[in-house]
């Protein structure tokens, strides 16, 4: 879906959504108002009916006794003009009361009905919708008693007004809000579109705008940004691997090429060619081992901490490394000794820690001249547990050490340090993964230490 279409879609859907929502609310409000109205008016009607039946009953009773006190009372006490009351001849002519003529549809001695009653008073006339009841009195005249349903109409009016003055503004407000919302969404999507275009164009540092709110669009932007972070890290890692590999492979490959070129021009015997291929293969093997080591370092750097962590007995570990390298050291007439002054266990990946220490010992064996010494020790220094590999080799120059230290401590990535082999970089990566500290010193020879901070065990 293109961005333009996305905008259309959001616009339309936002709008549609609002309209549908509004209609739903309007219908619900109307329904409840109408329901309230119908219910109320029904209640009112039955209440009024009860009232006029009761009144007419007692008037009929009074008429039997020969007087119409209550009838007269009712006529007199009607200041709010609620109570139409009248006496009619059996033929339907008005005898007395405030009802002008016989209400249409009204029948004698039936249940109350809704009727339009023509009322009058001194100086006024009106048609009054009322509940009305006609009763035959003992003398044959007919009593009409009514009760205005004006209250009922008032309720209807409230409902009507409610609909007009409540819903209409609500609708306009809703419409405005939805337009505003849609416009805002559209603007934000435009912003995102622009940013996304920049990112696509190669500016990986860019991120979609977010407001740290909980709205879905913002959540989405945050998720996309998280993905971008992840992708950026991956891309940078890949680029770094590429750089490292390119950098480290150039030399051995150049050597292989020169060797082969020379053989092509100057080798004459099969033996000479054989020697040249052997050298070329050794060179290629070296190149491969560099790639393998770099990939291994990258793998360690990307290993999730604690994935394969368990309790590792350090004394046992360095003793085993010692056993592995002792024959190798002896071959070079080096004295390899392992000191385990203390017992210590750490949480770690045993295989990786073994690899790290083996690498340090491997380096020591390689760089220490014949007759030298290599000490591997597990000791406690200033409250920290330290594994130290010390040799009597040439050690390391002060400035080089500084450089190493900077790379290992400051950089997030333990970058390959040229000239010192990949071994130390690998060790640094493993040590870092464990949250330990890697130290390099010069003390007569090369001194490497893996420091387990007090809380690291």
């Amino acid at each position, binding site marked *: 879906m293109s961005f333009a279409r996305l905008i259309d879609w959001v616009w339309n859907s936002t709008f549609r959504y609002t309209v549908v929502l509004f209609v739903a609310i309007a219908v619900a409000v109307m329904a409840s108002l109408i329901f309230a109205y119908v219910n109320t008016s029904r209640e009112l009607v039955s209440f009024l009916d009860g009232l006029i039946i009761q009144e007419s009953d007692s008037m009929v009773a009074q008429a039997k006794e020969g007087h119409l006190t209550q009838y007269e009372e009712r006529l007199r006490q009607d200041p709010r003009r609620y109570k139409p009351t009248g006496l009619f001849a059996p033929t339907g002519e008005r005898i007395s009361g405030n009802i002008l003529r016989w209400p249409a549809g009204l029948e004698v001695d039936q249940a109350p009905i809704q009727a339009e009653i023509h009322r009058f008073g001194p100086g006024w006339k009106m048609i009054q919708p009322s509940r009305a009841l006609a009763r035959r009195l003992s003398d044959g005249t007919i009593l009409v008693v009514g009760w205005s349903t004006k209250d009922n109409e008032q309720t209807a009016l409230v409902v009507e007004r409610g609909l007009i003055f409540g819903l209409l503004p609500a609708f306009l407000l809703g419409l405005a809000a939805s337009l505003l919302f849609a416009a805002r969404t559209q603007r934000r999507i435009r912003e995102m579109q622009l940013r996304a275009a920049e990112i696509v164009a190669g500016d990986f540092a860019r991120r979609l705008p977010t407001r740290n709110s909980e709205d879905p669009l913002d959540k989405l932007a945050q998720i996309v940004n998280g993905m971008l972070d992840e992708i950026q890290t991956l891309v940078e890692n890949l680029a770094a691997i590429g750089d490292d590999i390119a950098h480290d492979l150039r030399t051995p490959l150049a050597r292989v090429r020169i060797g082969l070129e020379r053989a092509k021009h100057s080798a004459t015997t099969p033996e000479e060619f054989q020697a040249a291929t*052997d050298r070329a293969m050794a060179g290629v093997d070296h190149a*491969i*081992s560099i790639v*393998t*080591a770099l*990939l*291994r370092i990258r*793998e360690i750097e990307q290993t999730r901490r604690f994935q394969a962590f368990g309790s590792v007995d350090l004394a046992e570990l360095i003793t085993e490394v010692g*056993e*592995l*390298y002792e*024959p*190798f050291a002896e*071959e070079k007439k080096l004295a390899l000794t392992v000191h385990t002054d203390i017992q210590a266990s750490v949480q770690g990946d045993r*295989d990786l820690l*073994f*690899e790290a220490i*083996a*690498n340090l010992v*491997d380096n020591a*064996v*390689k760089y220490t001249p014949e007759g030298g010494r290599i000490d591997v020790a597990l000791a406690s220094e200033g409250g920290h547990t330290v594994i130290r590999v010390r040799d009597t080799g040439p050690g390391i120059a002060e400035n080089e050490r500084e450089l190493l230290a900077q790379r290992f401590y400051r950089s997030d990535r333990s970058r390959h340090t040229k000239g010192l082999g990949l071994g130390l970089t690998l060790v640094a990566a493993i040590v870092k993964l464990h949250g330990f500290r890697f130290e390099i010193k010069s003390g007569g020879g090369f001194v490497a230490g893996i420091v387990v901070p007090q809380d690291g065990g």
Partner: protein
Amino acid sequence: MEVDGLDGTTDGSQAHAMTKVVLIEDDADTAQDICAELRDSGYVVDWAADGLTGLEMARAADADVLVIDRMLPGMDGLAVIDTLRREKIRTPVLVLSALGAVNDRVKGLRAGGDDYLSKPFAVLELVARIEALLRRPADTSAKTLRVGPLEIDLIERSANRAGREIELLPREYKLLEYMMRHCEQLLTRAMLFEEVWKYKFVPDSNLVDVHMGRLRRKVDASGEAAMISNIRGEGFVLRAPD
């Protein structure tokens, strides 16, 4: 010989006349080289360039060993292995991969592969590993192993050569036992390091050579015919003296 190599294997080109390898590898050049090398070593080789074809070939059941690349078009190498294992086809599998990381190795073996080799590899390494797969399960109930005059007691973990007691350190014993279980086979440094030392990394110094040197001095005392030989640049072989 009591244990391995009962077929009297002495020379590769005759020994595998009937041994069939199915190679599932999508890179035609690599496949061609591997096929040529395996045929030179006396194997019959069938090649499939994608997972599905390879799966069909592997199911055809006359294969003795499968060499499967991890990344394949159509069907991933690990999926092929998984399918075969579900179908109870137990042909040994050597997994090849350009991914050399330890985790990939673990994944490959967990999926049912019997061995794992990461690219680039020496063709010799490949042949040596195929050989080892073909010779797999040794008689595990045996109490002793014997190769020519050399004998080890698997219970006492002791060794002697024609009655001469050989004093071995535990690590040397393990190395010797492995070599005797795989006698007459070329064992590469990487194989020894993985199988004997069980380490997940291969050190770049010639550690294996040094350990092998020590073992050799103990096994082949002066005046005795050499049983452990170093095939230059390739690995080591233990064989009975002629």
